[in-house]
């Protein structure tokens, strides 16, 4: 039996060999190995999951469709019931009772010998757990947005690069044909020179008031759920609705930044950079403990002069001759516009959409299956369609918008040094201090 490190070395070697021969690494079809198309256990990717809520189990379900290629051995969640539910999913898929459960990710990472982990947690936990998994040299499928702060995001990028792991962000729109097609048309000039991109996101949620303090349910480790965030009593708000509280999330804006802002930058070819100026306004609930913006609207300028507006889509202006649907990303060029959203693509002239990208033009990374792409890259050691640096740059725009709206000030940003220029007050918002004993991840 090949042990884990040997197998990983083998995979890395074969990838570099393949790269050396200037051909794409070939994955041996599993059927060639006999065994009813199933890889021998030693060649299957050994996986675990941290965070097994709605998004976490959704991702696991995607992975478990591919039990021939991988094997889940352990799951971890601060909610015992959720960990148990995820274990049942895994056991059913593998037809055994072997999946182990954990409540503390540190113990999980210490004890389990994994190749890869899929992680889906509230944003305030991303900085610590993504870096911890990377430092364990696990390949990671991690949920967007990459981080709660730009400082956490940079620390995650640096941990991923330092440890040379394969990283896939859950920005799965990059593996959808319509989004790739739209971005490819834009980057190849099919709507001419682009001057403006508008990103239309969902409206923020209205306040719910302040629910009373409740007993923490027996299955939930509330202290661990809070982790590095400020200590507060339990008011029945944890799963899912954490995203309406600034201590854990920036609301719809940051939740969706990893999707439509990510796509907008893809089409601009700015995925490794960012704007230089950000200014905007948000409005906030007047009642209760939800405090993320309800309406948000900010304008970013790139050094090229291109503008990017991000807003909840009801705040975007309807244009004569513009798209009828303002959700998703809309690029405006001097020869027309293209709008793309989930299940939709439209253009000022439908003929634009029929254009074929020529051989010598820019072809964006092609992936038609987001989880499949991650698994292929684990084997090839190649870069995924949604790598960590790109994820960091996508959420940085959402977070800079949040800073502009919080301060009411125009933010000057240096995308190379990743510093706010000449504004020490706004610069404080690049980081959120962690609650002891947790320490902010360092770069």
């Amino acid at each position, binding site marked *: 039996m090949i042990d884990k490190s040997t197998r990983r070395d083998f995979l890395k070697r074969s990838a570099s060999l393949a790269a050396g021969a200037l051909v794409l690494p070939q994955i041996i079809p599993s059927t060639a190995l006999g065994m009813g198309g199933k890889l021998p256990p030693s060649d299957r990717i050994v996986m675990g999951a941290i965070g097994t809520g709605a998004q976490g189990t959704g991702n696991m379900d995607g992975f478990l469709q591919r039990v021939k290629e991988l094997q889940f051995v352990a799951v971890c969640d601060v909610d015992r019931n959720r960990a148990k539910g995820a274990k049942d999913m895994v056991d059913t898929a593998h037809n055994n009772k072997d999946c182990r459960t954990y409540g503390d990710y540190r113990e999980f990472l210490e004890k389990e010998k994994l190749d890869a982990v899929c992680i889906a947690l509230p944003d305030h936990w991303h900085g610590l757990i993504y870096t911890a998994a990377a430092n364990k040299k696990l390949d990671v499928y991690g949920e967007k947005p990459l981080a709660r702060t730009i400082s956490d995001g940079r620390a995650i990028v640096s941990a991923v690069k330092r440890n040379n792991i394969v990283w896939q962000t859950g920005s799965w729109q990059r593996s959808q044909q319509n989004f790739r097609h739209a971005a490819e048309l834009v980057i190849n000039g099919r709507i001419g020179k682009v001057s403006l991109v508008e990103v239309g996101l969902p*409206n*923020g*949620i*209205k*306040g719910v008031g*302040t629910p009373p303090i409740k007993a923490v349910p027996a299955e939930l480790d509330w202290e661990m759920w809070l982790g590095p965030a*400020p*200590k507060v009593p339990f008011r029945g708000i944890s799963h899912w609705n954490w995203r309406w509280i600034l201590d854990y999330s920036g609301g719809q804006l940051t939740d969706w930044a990893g999707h439509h802002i990510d796509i907008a930058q893809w089409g601009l070819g700015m995925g490794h950079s960012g704007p230089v100026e950000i200014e905007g*306004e948000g*409005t*906030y*609930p*007047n*009642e*209760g*403990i939800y*405090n993320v913006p*309800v*309406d948000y609207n900010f304008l970013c300028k790139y050094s090229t002069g291109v503008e990017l507006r991000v807003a*909840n889509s*009801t*705040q*975007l*202006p*309807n244009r004569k001759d513009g798209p*009828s649907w303002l959700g998703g990303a809309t690029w405006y060029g001097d020869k027309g516009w293209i709008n793309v959203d989930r299940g939709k693509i439209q253009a000022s002239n439908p003929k634009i959409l029929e254009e074929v990208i020529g051989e010598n033009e820019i072809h964006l990374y092609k992936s038609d299956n987001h989880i499949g792409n991650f698994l292929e890259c684990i084997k090839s050691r190649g870069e995924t369609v949604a790598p960590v640096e790109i994820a960091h740059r996508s959420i940085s725009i959402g977070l800079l918008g949040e800073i502009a*709206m*919080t*301060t*009411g*000030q125009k933010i000057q940003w240096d995308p190379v040094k990743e510093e706010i220029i000449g504004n020490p*007050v*706004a610069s*404080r*918002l690049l*980081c*959120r*201090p962690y*609650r*002891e004993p947790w320490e902010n991840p360092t770069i």
Partner: protein
Amino acid sequence: MKNQYILIFAIVITLFNGCTSGTHYKALIVTGQSSHNWRASSPILKQILEQTTLFSADILKAPEKKEEMSTFAPNFSNYNVVVLDYNGESWSEKTKTAFVEYVKNGGGVVIYHSANSAFPEWKEFNQMIGLGGWGGRDEKSGPYVYYNKNKLVIDTTAGSCGSVLKRQEFQVITRNPEHPITKGLPIGWQHGSDELYSELRGPGKNMEILATAFAAGTAGGNRRNEPMLMAITYGKGRIFHTTLGHADEGGGPAMECVGFIVTLQRGTEWAASGKVTQKIPYDFPNNGSISLRAGFKEMTLDDDLAKITTYDITKSTKYFVDLQSRIRTEAKTPEALQKFEKLIIKILENKEATDDGKKLLLGELSWMGSELSIPAIKQQTKNPNLKAAAEFALARLQPSR
């Protein structure tokens, strides 16, 4: 020489207008007969207009029903804007003619709520209001005008005119964000519980629909986006038409709504002058929640601070959100931030102030504070309720330590 005097005079006037709260426009509120509670609404309209300091408003009661109407002959031309809170008996021909002349020559008009049901038979009036309702109006009065999603619909289908949805809070959508009245308003905002007027008809000429609201099926509506705010021109005159603001005794949420108050103030200024100089206040509602002003008055910073001083977590966070909004809009420099910082420190040092209020303020200080705040924040670390928030603020303000 003469021109120079005029120039100097103009400068003096401009300075005067810019620096003082002088009254610029005279408004006449015409009331006294209405299917609605005009005794409640008219004094509130006066208060709302005068609080801008742009207007002085007179309330003129028309004769009561069945009394002699021929004596009702206001001198409209003494005013910059006439606000109609009236849907009673017809005026004398002479008065009608005077009103038409007044508007044609550039007079402003505000049609408030049920005033759009007045004078169904008066052609010029119907042209001025754009759309009206009730009083036997039907397809002969003009088409229904509304939005279907983002498309303006002119619907000539025969049918009755004017209906009211059951009282509810609803969202108002800005349709023309470039008009002086609506420029700078959020595209969507929540309105205090009000009657939602639906199925209005009229000539709709020279009319811009500034904002609509959705007549939801669940509230008995026809699922159209119905006009709520309109701007019409007639001759040289400008008419602002608001369907909002149903008056309960003492006003109630429809009139206390900052959205109603502010659009009325802005619409009246536009009708009087063709421009709007007022700023959008920080407490304008958004898609998240309605925003009401008790007593129709804008809250002051002192009000906010007093409420935060006594805040506990079961109460409204509105005053804190207001303070945050003031900081964002008014304090763009470190010096300006310090003005607010000093006020916040005072509350932190106030032994009577609640822990819940202080906790909110510590969060705000964590980004906008300075060295000035450090001693006051350190003091809070001794309070077990505030320790975490204080340490968070200290860590952010002094990252190196």
